[in-house]
């Protein structure tokens, strides 16, 4: 019996449309109306400026630990831009720019990172899951949402985000496998930012690409220049259209870079070189897209000022939020509060009213407890 080839050689494509100087491969340029290009750029700028502001707010102790997005704006927005509001977005914990685009308000995001669960409550009708912190565990949810949408006969696509580190988790592989078997309308967007805290991609996987992992599950995988918003957009639009047409799930690997810290408690100088960061700074997605818009004469004067004003107003509103009402912690544990929680709520209410708790210092202004990988901040 001879050995036979069961599958032809797989191919994994790489897509890049706009290089780091803003030069365009015109044959691949997606057809995006000028107004949409301007909205996209503004969203990227808002993501960048809010990120910078949030780092200052964290250093001042006004919000807790969070995961900055600097450098990943194109990966997030090029992808999320292709969704309809009625589609679902399933973030991990580093998708602030995409979440803003999907309708989360700046105040809500700040509240969330200041330890208020109110900040994780999507608006009525908003088809977004809140931040998921345990790595890759949100991906099966996206597959279940997509199954349910298909089951109900809804014309709905689910887009889920994760990072390169997540591709080592079992939930990533289980989610891809289920999505493939069920042929559901899910788009997996992997933001390969090269580092899972201190562990570089080469220690995370021996695969040449992350995109090729999709092929083992029978779904297409595509690698794109994640700092090129046009490439991310083009790949995502294709994947979303495929999903909506009933042609199943897709994985998109966005090759990008976390220009900043893992979280505000991380010190990347310990594990990577300044030269590496500088090399990626030259590939900044905002600079590149800005140059493209400049050539098209689509860059508005005063854009940065208007974005900063929007952030400043939101920060002001955030600052007016009063201390968290401790008794509300009992409101959403169950649909109907069971007897033992009624009793515990009464106990806490009495304690706050009459007991030593009434004089206890308000701790709500302090940063929330550490996230995965956090060390005590050195500054």
């Amino acid at each position: 019996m001879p050995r036979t080839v069961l599958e032809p050689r797989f191919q994994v494509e790489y897509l890049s449309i706009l290089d780091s100087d803003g030069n365009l491969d015109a044959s691949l340029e997606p057809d995006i109306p000028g107004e949409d290009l301007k909205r996209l750029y503004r969203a990227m700028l808002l993501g960048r400026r809010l990120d910078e502001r949030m780092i200052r707010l964290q250093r001042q102790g006004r919000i807790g630990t969070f995961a900055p997005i600097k450098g990943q704006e194109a990966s997030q927005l090029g992808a999320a831009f292709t969704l309809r509001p009625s589609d679902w977005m399933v973030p991990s914990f580093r998708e602030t720019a995409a979440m803003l685009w999907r309708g989360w308000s700046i105040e809500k995001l700040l509240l969330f990172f200041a330890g208020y669960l109110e900040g994780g409550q999507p608006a009525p009708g908003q088809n977004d899951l809140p931040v998921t912190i345990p790595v890759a565990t949100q991906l099966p949810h996206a597959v279940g949402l997509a199954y349910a949408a298909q089951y109900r006969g809804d014309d709905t696509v689910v887009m889920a985000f994760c990072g390169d580190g997540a591709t080592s988790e079992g939930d990533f592989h289980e989610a891809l496998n289920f999505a493939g078997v069920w042929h559901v309308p899910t788009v997996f967007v992997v933001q390969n930012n090269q580092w899972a805290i201190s562990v570089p991609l080469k220690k995370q996987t021996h695969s040449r690409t992350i995109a090729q992992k999709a092929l083992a599950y029978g779904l297409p995988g595509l690698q794109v220049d994640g700092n090129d918003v046009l490439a991310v957009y083009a790949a995502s639009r294709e994947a979303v259209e495929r999903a909506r047409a009933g042609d199943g799930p897709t994985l998109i690997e966005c090759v990008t870079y976390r220009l900043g810290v893992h979280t505000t408690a991380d010190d990347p100088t310990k594990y990577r070189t300044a030269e590496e960061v500088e090399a990626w700074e030259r590939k900044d997605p905002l600079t590149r897209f800005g140059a493209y818009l400049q050539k098209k004469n689509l860059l508005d004067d005063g854009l940065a000022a208007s974005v900063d004003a929007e952030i400043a107003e939101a920060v002001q509103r955030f600052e007016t939020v009063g201390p968290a009402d401790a008794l509300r912690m009992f409101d959403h544990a169950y649909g109907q509060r069971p007897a033992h929680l009624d009793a515990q709520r009464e106990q806490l209410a009495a304690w706050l009213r009459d007991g030593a708790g009434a004089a206890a210092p308000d701790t709500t202004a302090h940063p929330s407890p550490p996230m995965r990988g956090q060390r005590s901040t050195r500054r």
Partner: protein
Amino acid sequence: MARLNVVKALNLALLQEMERDEDVLVMGEDVGVDGGVFRVTEDLHRTFGSKRVIDSPLAEAAIIGTGVGMALYGLRPVCEIQFSGFAFQCFHQIENHAARYRMRSQGRFSVPMVIRMPYGGGVRALEHHSESEEQFYAHIPGLKMVVPSGPRNARALLVSAIRDPDPVVFFEHKALYHAAKEEVPDEIETLPLGRAQVVREGRDVTLVAYGAMLRVAREAAETLAQEDGAEAEVIDLLTISPLDRATLVASVQKTGRAVVVHEAVRSFGPGAEIAASIMDGAFLSLEAPIARVASWDVPFPGFAREKASVPDLPRVLAAARETLAF
């Protein structure tokens, strides 16, 4: 009205709830064509098709994880984990997500799913097929933990679990699946979650049990009545969490004595919370220390030694007599 065993009673609950509500679907390993390894989902795929009775790939985390996603969308998945011993591969999805989505989203989302698992020993099975580990789920805020003890309450509790707005972990004792038949009404019946039942009234000692241990507790009560002239009150918990403390406390206020029986290992098991709740509510009525009869604190010892570990009639009787004589 038909005489059904637990398997048929659970099957009836699923069938009727799926007929009533298109949002109810069943998912798990071998639940479709095969009808489940214990046949609880038998023939459902014939009636409802493979989109509603899903033979999933073999991956517990994704069964629960995708179930969470379906529930977030508004469906009511009933997920089967083939044996509770394998549920640690999806424990993170239960603890991190199913139990927390309502809280995390501040009421915007809920996860109305049921996670069914066969549990318990006494069936001469290998490791991971014989454990009782309800305490892990009972400990998680946001979850409900239900353990029926017979065909009729199994059927009614499963219907209630499916209709409940919150995630419910539903334990089915393997030794009870075919142990006995009971009259089960044709029309749909429910039982409130979080409510225990006094299944035998008595004035001298309260025996608290659930699942397969209920039968042991009832036998102990009958023996005590015949041989000792002592009348034991027997409480069938039915729901472990939220615990029906009021029923426990009212009973011990009357009897002054309590013996808790469970198959889970003793330390940090449900008996500890039950005993503490009785102490909180009925301390001044207590005439004796609260006794616990449970499996020994060892990993599953193999079924050749299982009988020496899982509580049985002699051990429960001994504990009750010691309590009565205190």
